[in-house]
């Protein structure tokens, strides 16, 4: 379409509107607006186009014609704002493509498979708020009946948290050979984080071992959002108790180990605060409300339960995910 065609199309809309065709030409105007934007017609060119199209309708008084010169001058400033969109967008896209690569690297650090041990069913949903996650989780299978898991939240989100996450992964990997229990591992990680991270940053974590022979979960907690224990017999949720300073707060922190045993149908739900941290309208979501959501989804396979909760909570906050979201569900079958 040439500029002349646009001018004629514009004049036709003006004529139709003048002839009382009402809303239809106004709708046409909106569609024309989209076309003009898609063709990169600048605001000042639009002001000019308007003036020219008007001339096709009839004699335009001189003072009206002159007024478009003033409008054009003003519109040039708007045009400069408009042209800057492309520059903002391309700068942003440059960074985003770097982040996409970094985010793929980060994904590669996470376990690609969930543990599969007899009698326990594992589900996981972990979604970053932005492209890069500051939540961390890990599963390590020791043998066919025992696995370890970690769930952690690094202060903040985005790139800095992601950098920190990759450190954490290596620190944990380095521990591989040593024979430490959950409390010992947290003690060791606390020293690593304390030594290497900015004092303003810290990490909350639950580290635990599951033994599917006896269905016992032995864990330690470092300042982390408490998980939930679902007792099938009572159809009730309990907080998963645990205390201990977050990693990186103070050197030499120690951690206590706790144990729970799962009966058939019992569930363990571990999560990061991104699960609970959401605004619903103008109010903040409460932990008690979460329990009622959990209650509604209990009894299905672990992965199904994790998926359903994610979708229900996302809808609740209208698809805004202000923080990284991670939930691990262990369910004794």
């Amino acid at each position, binding site marked *: 379409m040439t500029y002349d065609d646009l001018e004629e199309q514009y004049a036709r809309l003006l004529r139709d509107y003048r002839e009382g065709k*009402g*809303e*239809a030409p*106004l*709708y046409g105007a*909106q569609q024309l*607006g*989209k076309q003009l*934007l*898609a063709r990169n017609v600048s605001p000042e060119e639009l002001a000019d186009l308007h003036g020219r199209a008007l001339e096709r309708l009839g004699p335009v008084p001189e003072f009206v014609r002159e007024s478009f010169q003033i409008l054009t001058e003003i519109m040039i400033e708007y045009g400069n704002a408009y042209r800057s*969109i492309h520059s903002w*967008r391309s700068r942003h896209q440059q960074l985003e493509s770097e982040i996409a690569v970094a985010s793929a690297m980060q994904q590669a650090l996470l376990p690609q498979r969930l543990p599969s041990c007899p009698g326990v069913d594992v589900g996981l949903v972990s979604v970053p708020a932005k492209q890069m996650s500051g939540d961390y989780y890990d599963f390590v299978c020791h043998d066919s009946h025992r696995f370890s898991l970690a769930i952690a939240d690094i202060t903040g989100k985005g790139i800095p948290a992601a950098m920190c996450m990759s450190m954490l992964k290596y620190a944990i990997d380095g521990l591989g050979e040593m024979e430490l229990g959950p409390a010992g591992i947290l003690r060791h990680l606390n020293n690593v984080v304390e030594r290497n991270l900015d004092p303003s940053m810290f990490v909350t974590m639950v580290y635990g071992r599951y033994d599917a022979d006896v269905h016992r979960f032995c864990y330690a907690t470092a300042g982390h959002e408490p998980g939930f224990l679902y007792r099938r017999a009572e159809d009730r949720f309990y907080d998963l108790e645990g205390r201990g300073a977050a990693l990186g707060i103070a050197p030499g922190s120690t951690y206590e180990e706790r144990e729970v045993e799962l009966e058939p149908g019992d569930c363990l739900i571990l999560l990061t605060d991104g699960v609970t941290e959401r605004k619903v309208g103008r109010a903040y979501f409460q932990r008690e409300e979460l329990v009622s959501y959990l209650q509604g989804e209990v009894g299905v396979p672990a992965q199904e339960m994790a998926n359903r909760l994610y979708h229900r909570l996302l*809808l609740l906050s*209208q*698809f805004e*995910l202000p923080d990284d979201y991670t939930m691990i569900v262990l369910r004794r079958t």
Partner: protein
Amino acid sequence: MTEPFSEQVNIATEADIVTARQIGRNMARQLGFGTIMQSRIATTISELARNIYLYAGSGTIFIEQVERDSRIGLRITAADTGPGIADMRKAMEDGYSTSGGLGAGLPGVKRMMDEFFLESVPGKGTRVIVVKWRNEAGGGDPD
């Protein structure tokens, strides 16, 4: 002030989009919105109705007067039983729509309105609800 009122328009053709815009614009005028806000409301209805027309084939636009805390506003509900939006977070990002991200689209609608609610289930349909309050700070014409 008239009694609280509402109207529903079934969207199946482009002419229905025009009808819905017209009704919305008139209701906005009757509620005392300024001319620019009338046009923004018509644009919003247009975007929601076009989404129905283009992606779901058919659906409805429901326009009603609302009151809350002694404020008066207009609520627009667009509903269809179409294929739904697969990635809702993406649909709310600038630059997602085919026009290269300029112009209205859902993020543009959200910025023009005071309240915005989107719900979509793949295979089941989509519902968008927006509210524009009269005299809300920044909501009317500049003064």
